């Protein structure tokens, strides 16, 4: 039993160390800030460990844990309003200006935070995680059609943000100077 636990722990530790950066970033885009992301990601991994037998037997353990994370995030959203990463969206930005790019990134994150939870999740999974519609649907526990719809609405709302319109004129979003 002890050896079984050791093997289990070792397997889990290797897995978590490997995928932590990626899922932490996903959690950040879903949760809205560093600390909330760390809490969300850690919580997902705690649950993954508790169910490691199932997770490790899954064909794609990362997808399994991502689904746990998305479910965790959805539950937390049912209990509290979405948080904003910045207090306000700037009125305008000056193209090619470093500060402006930073503002643009803030504007993008603010707009993302303002999306309804499922739109936000669909956008993050499709356009950050780069999942297919079916993979995103599996992670969200909904249909492919729902993912398409939610992602399309989310992207449309992001593109409505004035400052993000300017991004298209500049030809890029955010970025370091």
């Amino acid at each position: 039993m002890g050896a079984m636990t050791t093997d289990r722990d070792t397997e889990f530790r290797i897995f978590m160390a490997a995928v932590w950066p990626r899922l932490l970033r996903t959690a950040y885009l879903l949760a809205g800030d560093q600390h909330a992301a760390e809490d969300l990601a850690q919580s997902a991994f705690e649950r993954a460990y508790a169910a490691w037998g199932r997770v490790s037997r899954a064909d794609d353990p990362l997808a399994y844990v991502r689904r746990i994370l998305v479910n965790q995030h959805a539950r937390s959203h049912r209990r509290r309003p979405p948080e904003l990463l910045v207090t306000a969206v700037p009125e305008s930005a000056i193209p090619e200006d470093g500060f402006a790019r930073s503002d643009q990134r803030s504007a993008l994150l603010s707009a993302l935070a303002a999306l309804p939870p499922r739109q936000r999740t669909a956008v993050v999974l499709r356009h950050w995680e780069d999942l297919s519609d079916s993979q995103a649907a599996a992670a969200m526990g909904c249909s492919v059609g729902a993912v398409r719809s939610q992602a399309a609405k989310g992207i449309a709302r992001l593109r409505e943000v004035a400052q993000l319109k300017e991004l298209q004129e500049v030809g890029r979003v955010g970025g370091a100077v």
Partner: protein
Amino acid sequence: MNGLDGVNGLDGAGGPGGAGAADGATALIGSGLAEAAEAVRVGPAPVGAAVAGGRRIRRRRRTLVGAVVLGSAVLVAGAGAVGLHDGPAAAGVAVPAAGGPAPLVEPGPVVPEPAVGPAVPPAVGSGVEASPRGERDPLSAARTVVGEGTADGRAWKAVAALWPAAADRLQALAQARTIWQEQRTAGSDLTEPTAAAIDQYWQPGQDIVDVYLTVDGVRMPDDHTFLTPAPGARAGTGLTGATGEGALIGYRGKGETEPPVDVLVVAVGPSVGRATVTWTDGTTSEVPLRGLGTGSESRWLVMSRPAGAKASAWHLYDRQGSPIAGDLGWFK
């Protein structure tokens, strides 16, 4: 990119509102998200904390019963479940992969209310039977066998216990404690649900469906709870797609014995009329759909995965026999 063309007609960098502009804008947003994500400070993975937390969860298995019973909430609208692929007693039947209209929606056999103790009487009969305490009594579940088979020479059943929606928080707490008593009797180490948990997790108008396994007539501690709209729930609260939340439930005896069987449980929407799965050995199994009865419109797909087997493809059909998309690719 992904159905965005024409959405809002926002002019992109490349011109007035064309598909290319829309795709370009979406790509820019994608790159913006990537840059934002890169801004996260990534330290060492808190493996120790995750392991400790995971052990705590396992030890107290869902500390707040509310989080378990009510928190694994998933809104599902239909239900019916199952069929299976697991030995001669399984409900699944090998069929050609080609699909035709053959809607199979029928209630599974109802299991009598179990007496206190881990043993669950074998399921017999068919049709829907209200709980002994009356129609839709939140404190008494109506149980339906949604799948059965044999594995390693042991007979297993997947049972869905439908607990009707509680009327208020007080009743929700009583219900959670009743469910907890059952889970605890089955070997779960959950702690008793509290009023605080109910305050946080209870969702009015939602039936609770607790799916668990029995092996040789003994209920296993591993289970999964779903929420599904109670009859008469407001429109829009149910499952609109072909498939909803799913879970893999593995038989887990004392001492965390490796499960001889994994059982897939997935809520399916009202549009689904038929389901089949093709295994990597080329055989295809029909997965009948059954309802839970007692007024619930939920429908479920339940299927076991034989040892060593892997699913290669799923096929869902609507009630007219036309193929429809589902999201079961995560289960192989």
